[in-house]
């Protein structure tokens, strides 16, 4: 006989304000099988858990139902509590009476009635629960970091420092990412390269870190602790082990008209090149589309001049497969395309630039060697207008609905740096709001206004047009209720940022969820902000949401801590809620294997007794519980119902249906 205990949580007033929790606990007492029912302010608190533990022991409970918040929140908490009291943790069911009830209903009677039904439904299910035991799987003590920007670098260094092997897969020819392109960092105005490049070098020199640059993740199999990842090493046509980074090839290359992507296309570079001076690895790469040798079959000058014989035009993409215990995704961002914003004339005017382009124009290693010259005529701009929120907070469909978070601060930085370096320059900033939460951030912004005299205009720009070689920026000044036009030499757009598009493919490979803006979804917005819902996958940097460098570095280190925690274990408990076939009913038809995304199902021949002393050999399905992820696709494909899912069995779900329909 089942002995069920029911615990109704008030969640302070979160539940109790709309659900009569005492009534629910009282009504439930008369449910068949229920021997104990209680309510308490905070079930998840230490006292609440104690209440549960005590009741389990005192009343010999065989299963418990907690009417509380979403199981996504505290299922694990209550399972642990049950386990501590000697009850199998899978004999716990949660009735979600907060998110699915008290928070969405206003009428107390209605919400209370629904809460009772939800609790009854959970009771119906828990009665059919079976004690489950988690299996174990070994942990490969190596981590993969996808993306070699500051997030990836920081995560890799922290993991490696803890003594675990780390591979960084970077799709570009060098690690460094966006931070390498930035001139100075707010709010301290440190030189970005000065603080980043030492970390890049650390990576290169770390004995535990293997940098796989110019590489992409091709396929991911397996599961937490046991990922098997295929990595495509793109052909760079230069032998990485031989190239010394002497750059002679770059000097000799006759095809020098390639757009320098590192400099945002503001100048050119040779077909064979090292992206920038401090690149890691400091190894050249050939742009095959630009290279004369590849286009015509003739040339081969770089090969001739290479002193170490590193040039290899025959190189092909190669694939390596490696095993990892954990994966950190740190794929970063890119500024959005501005083609939809023709009001700012970005496509038509060379002197309308993005902020990232301005970073390169102001960088000592940039196309102008750090002298701010406007792209059209190489003149010093005298009037510079910044436009904020270009494509951010835009629900019209052209841009992104979210705030890109970093623009306010970097625009203040740019304005400040320009005013400092070129005091004769007039700087205007059109803004909607200035958002500066963060340590020393608002002080920084105020310094731009108060100390450097940057002209902040509350209002938005309606159009930018070219009149006699001048950029006319027409916008509103809401404080004065005026429409103003500023004659500018240079217009800088604070373009919204979006996740690097390749993240979609990676998310699919990792079966990690992604939101409508292509940001990877964290497991819990507050409590598990660096973990993907897919076990063993962690998120660092802008791939998870807009953030600045300090936040990115913090998140990367947090990721590393999680990864280290995982890799420090020798064995992992596996999810016991896996598919399991009833062999006596299995037809061996192979339909289930056809829909299994994990290849968890195989078939074996087994002998069965038929009665009357007869036996029969039949082909039956067999599930590898370490590989099965418990989706249940196979259970529906199985016509005989031989395949069932532990923890979500057909009978359990049907009993829930019954309970809901029962009036």
């Amino acid at each position, binding site marked *: 006989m089942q002995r069920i205990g029911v615990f109704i949580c008030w969640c302070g007033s979160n539940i109790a304000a709309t659900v009569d929790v005492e009534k629910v606990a009282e009504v439930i007492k008369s449910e068949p099988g229920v021997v104990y029912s209680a309510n308490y302010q905070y079930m998840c608190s230490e006292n609440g858990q104690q209440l549960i533990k005590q009741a389990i022991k005192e009343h010999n409970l065989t299963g418990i139902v907690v009417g509380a918040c979403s199981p996504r929140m505290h299922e694990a908490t209550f399972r642990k509590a049950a386990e501590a009291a000697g009850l199998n943790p899978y004999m716990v069911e949660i009735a979600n009476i907060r998110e699915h009830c008290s928070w969405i209903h206003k009428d107390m009677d209605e919400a209370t009635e629904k809460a009772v039904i939800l609790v009854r439904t959970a009771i119906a299910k828990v009665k059919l629960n079976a004690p489950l035991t988690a299996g174990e799987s070994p942990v490969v003590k190596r981590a993969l970091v996808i993306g070699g920007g500051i997030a990836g670098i920081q995560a890799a260094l922290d993991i490696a420092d803890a003594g675990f092997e780390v591979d960084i897969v970077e799709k570009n020819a060098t690690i460094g990412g966006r931070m390498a392109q930035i001139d100075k960092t707010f709010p301290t105005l440190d030189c970005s390269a000065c603080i980043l490049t030492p970390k890049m070098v650390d990576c290169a020199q770390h004995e535990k870190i293997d940098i796989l640059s110019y590489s992409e993740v091709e396929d991911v199999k397996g599961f937490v602790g046991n990922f098997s990842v295929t990595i495509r090493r793109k052909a760079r046509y230069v032998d990485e082990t031989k190239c010394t980074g002497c750059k002679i090839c770059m000097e000799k290359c006759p095809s020098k008209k390639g757009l320098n992507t590192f400099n945002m296309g503001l100048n050119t570079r040779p077909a064979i090149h090292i992206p920038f001076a401090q690149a890691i690895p400091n190894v050249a790469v050939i742009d095959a589309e630009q290279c004369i040798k590849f286009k015509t079959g003739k040339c081969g000058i770089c090969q001739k001049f290479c002193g170490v014989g590193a040039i290899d035009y025959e190189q092909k993409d190669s694939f390596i497969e490696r095993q990892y215990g954990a994966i950190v995704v740190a794929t970063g961002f890119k500024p959005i395309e501005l083609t939809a914003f023709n009001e700012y004339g970005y496509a038509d005017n060379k002197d309308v630039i993005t902020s990232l382009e301005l970073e390169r124009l102001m960088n000592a290693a940039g196309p102008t060697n750090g002298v701010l010259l406007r792209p059209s005529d190489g003149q010093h701009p005298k009037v510079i207008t910044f436009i904020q929120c270009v494509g951010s907070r835009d629900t019209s469909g052209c841009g992104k609905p979210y705030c890109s978070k970093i623009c306010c601060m970097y625009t203040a930085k740019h304005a400040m740096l320009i005013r400092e370096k070129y005091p004769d320059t007039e700087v205007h900033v059109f803004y909607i709001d200035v958002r500066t939460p963060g340590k020393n951030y608002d002080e920084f912004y105020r310094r731009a206004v108060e100390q450097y005299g940057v002209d902040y205009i509350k209002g938005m720009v309606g159009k930018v047009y070219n009149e006699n070689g001048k950029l006319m920026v027409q916008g509103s000044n809401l404080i004065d209720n005026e429409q103003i036009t500023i004659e500018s030499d240079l217009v800088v757009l604070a373009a919204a940022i979006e996740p690097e598009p390749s993240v979609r493919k990676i998310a699919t490979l990792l079966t990690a969820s992604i939101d409508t803006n292509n940001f990877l979804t964290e497991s819990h917005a507050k409590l598990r902000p660096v973990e993907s819902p897919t076990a063993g996958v962690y998120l660092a940097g802008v791939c998870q949401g807009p953030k600045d460098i300090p936040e990115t570095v913090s998140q990367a280190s947090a990721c590393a801590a999680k990864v280290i925690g995982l890799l420090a274990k020798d064995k992992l408990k596996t999810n016991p809620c896996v598919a399991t076939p009833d062999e006596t009913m299995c037809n061996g038809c192979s339909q289930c294997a056809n829909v299994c995304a994990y290849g968890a199902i195989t078939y074996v021949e087994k002998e069965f007794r038929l009665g*009357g002393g007869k036996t029969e050999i039949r082909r039956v399905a067999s599930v590898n519980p370490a590989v099965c992820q418990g989706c249940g696709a196979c259970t529906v494909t199985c016509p005989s119902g031989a395949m069932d899912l532990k923890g979500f069995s057909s009978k359990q779900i049907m009993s829930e249906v*019954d309970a809901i329909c029962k009036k």
Partner: protein
Amino acid sequence: MLKIAKERLNELYAKISETMGLFIPVNYAGEVNYKVWKEGAEVSLETLKTVKSPKNMFFPQTENMMKFKTEGKNIEIIDVRKDYKEEKPFVLFGVKACDYKAIEVLDKVFLAEPVDTYYQSRREATTIVTLACSKPEESCFCGVFGIDATAPQGDVTTWLDGEYLYWQANTEKGEALTALITALTEEGGEETVAGQRETTKAVLENLPFAKLDLSRFTPENLNDLFEAKEWEEMSEACLGCGTCTFVCPTCQCFDIRDFKTNEGVIRYRCWDSCMYSDFTLMAHGNSRTTQMQRFRQRFMHKLVYYPSQNDGLYSCVGCGRCVNKCPQRLNIVKVVKTLGGKKDD
């Protein structure tokens, strides 16, 4: 003897329906089965064999036995069968001789102690109007069981030809029903009926199965029959479906199942078939593990076990439904022929 003009039959049905339920062969969705007569129903008395036999009227395919009403932890048990009383009398109209005989077979089961109150109540409430056969078909073999298809029993016996339905009451119930409908009747028809019987008898005697020999199916031969090696071969093509059982007028096995409702649980019974693989499933397992055993059981029961317990009354009436309806054309005739032999041979 009375007669009713064919074109006035609808009036007859309407008259009966005024005070009683009338179950009669009706063509519905392309098939003829016993149904409650309603204005506009497409009555088909000419149909020799309804798909389902009229046993359905006394022993429906599904009926509730008891209810468990649950409220919280309390369970109230309601025995819906105990004091069951059919409230409205009803007339079962157009029953053929074989099906009427089948009711006799069922009576021995359901009216013996412990009496099935549902069955008893319905039997008592029913007036059976039989209809003589005039056009038997090749699958008919009621004669083998001593049934006269041209003069069935029942509370009222009727005969049908192109013009009239001839009516003869046999019992008190029959007389009562006759009294109800006298306005529609006229006297006469004895000669026509006698003539029809003669013609039909001649056809019956020459039916292909008329001379089936049942003499081997005796309790003495039980073991030999049981062990006969032919069962294996005879049952090989059997699909294990319940068609033969469910169309059979004498099969009376049922299963008891529970059904969950909003109020609690309904315990009901429903026809079961000995051809089903779970028929004899018990807690310990299943005593019949092969289709051969199930197949054998069905025919041994009809031809040996049942007669041996019921004064030689066979539990087959030769209606031939299984002959027509078995998907793979297996049937009792093939069994009798294989294990029994023909009188003439």
